[in-house]
């Protein structure tokens, strides 16, 4: 059931998740990192689905996001690499901004394989690609669509490209790969804003100043 197989389509992937969750429940022999990865994938899939809803359930989103954060924290501690700390942000901070600014996200050294970069996406979750709007704006933007600027980056590619066996492969290699865990110390910088956000910002500024 869990053996290496062919690359499967998305619908097969979902069926596999259902099979995997019963395997999780019934098998005592599933290795812990595998179980953990399965749960993490399920969480991210759910959040991805919620992102597409007009009004995701805030209670569920918070619970799932906390679970993701917990798993990622555990994975990071296990990797036992020194955490790259930017000035003013501590690794033990529980806020999202704390996590994503700890040096793991966004700036991938070139040459990292697609597989590893997918894993990186999981670890850089949630990526702070959204606009940093003030609270009221976030409410207006339907931030019952959780956390305002809460996004999963490259999420569609993550789901389509990842085959079942790739998930398992990730556990052994990229998590412990020191190349991207410890990029050289960067001077403190504000979180990079994507191009799309810049143009959105411009657009909003235009409306505000009426130009």
């Amino acid at each position, binding site marked *: 059931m869990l053996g290496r197989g062919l690359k499967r389509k998305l619908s097969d992937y979902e069926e596999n998740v259902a099979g995997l*969750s019963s395997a999780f*429940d019934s098998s005592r022999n599933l290795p812990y990192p595998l179980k953990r990865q399965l749960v993490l994938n399920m969480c991210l899939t759910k959040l991805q689905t919620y992102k597409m809803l007009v009004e995701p359930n805030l*209670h569920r989103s918070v619970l799932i996001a*906390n*679970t993701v954060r917990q798993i990622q924290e555990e994975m990071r501690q296990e990797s036992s690499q020194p955490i790259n700390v930017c000035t003013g942000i501590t690794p033990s901070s529980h*806020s999202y901004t704390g996590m994503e600014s700890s040096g793991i996200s966004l700036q991938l050294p070139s040459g990292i394989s697609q597989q590893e970069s997918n894993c990186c996406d999981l670890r850089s979750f949630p990526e702070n690609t959204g606009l940093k709007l003030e609270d009221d704006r976030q409410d207006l933007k339907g931030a019952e669509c959780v956390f305002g600027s809460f996004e999963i980056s490259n999420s569609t590619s993550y789901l389509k490209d990842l085959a079942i066996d790739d998930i398992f492969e990730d556990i052994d290699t990229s998590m412990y790969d020191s190349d991207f865990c410890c990029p050289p110390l960067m001077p403190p910088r504000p979180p990079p804003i994507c191009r799309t956000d810049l143009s959105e910002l411009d657009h909003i500024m235009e409306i505000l100043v009426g130009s």
Partner: protein
Amino acid sequence: MSEHLHPTDIISTVEFNHSGELLATGDKGGRVVIFQQEQENKTQSHSRGEYNVYSTFQSHEPEFDYLKSLEIEEKINKIRWLPQKNAAQFLLSTNDKTIKLWKISERDKRPEGYNLKEEDGRYRDPTTVTTLRVPVFRPMDLMVEASPRRIFANAHTYHINSISINSDYETYLSADDLRINLWHLEITDRSFNIVDIKPANMEELTEVITAAEFHPNSCNTFVYSSSKGTIRLCDMRASALCDRHSKLFEEPEDPSNRSFFSEIISSISDVKFSHSGRYMMTRDYLSVKIWDLNMENRPVETYQVHEYLRSKLCSLYENDCIFDKFECCWNGSDSIVMTGSYNNFFRMFDRNTKRDITLEASRENNKPRTVLKPRKVCASGKRKKDEISVDSLDFNKKILHTAWHPKENIIAVATTNNLYIFQDKMN
């Protein structure tokens, strides 16, 4: 127990009034159906009166929020009765955004014999009136009318999960995911915010409010529960904004039960004070806990509702059942607590004898007016006769809403599409 069955739309809330004579249900379609207990029949002294439909009305309609481009569901999340002050009954009903005060009144007489109107309502030509008469009230068939008396709107950005009427009977609270507001029943255009846990930066949000209730006797005290399994007791005399709790109730986690889903299953889905006001009960995914208000560090009693589900958490997470919000209730004397489960099972725990029972609300398995048979779920290993194995439980048949008559042993149990009313067999 004898049973009375009422098919309805998907029931979303069930509540007895203070005397127990009336039972209100709210459904997904925004309707409220009120049942009334028949007056006791002197010849049939072996059973209490049955509940029959008394009034049905449309409480909430679906709305569209144009600003956020969102549809607001008409589903009734909660109903709470006011104590009766005069001939009419009053209840509060709420959907995700708006609370309404409804007046339910009876009309069993109507005026007849107007001079300027015909009996059918048409106006008479005044020039044709030759004699005058005094209109009199004549009996008519009982008509129950529901009219909205107050509409409390636009005070909640997030979804309302609780309403609770204060023991002063003048104010009430409404709670959404992040805020709790205090209202005066007479004033609809403003409310007072008493709890706000929204962080300045929404990305830092890790906890939401799941339920809130006023203390039954102290009009300054209320509690609210959270998604992290904590309960905070607040005293409104301490400060205007009750962001700092007076008491924090939290049980440290049992490390042997730790799993990826620990936080999710610790989320409290319901909190209810005992009638005495000395205890409160919380429901999380797998258990019911009784807390003594004087002891914050752990509950005084814990009852496992369906511990056999602990080994199935991943599957229950995958199909979202792990997020189901079960409610719980006390009996009138606070000696028994009740809550629902899956497969149309519901559970009762006797706090004195420490005995518990599992019953099933189902048409197929129970003939009307027969005593309910206790059920048992076999967690693993050999299944005895009449036991049900965990794997054959139907997780679509969930009992989320139950209510217990305030004085008698009559319970209302809502399955997805049916309301069951069970009564103790009187000997």
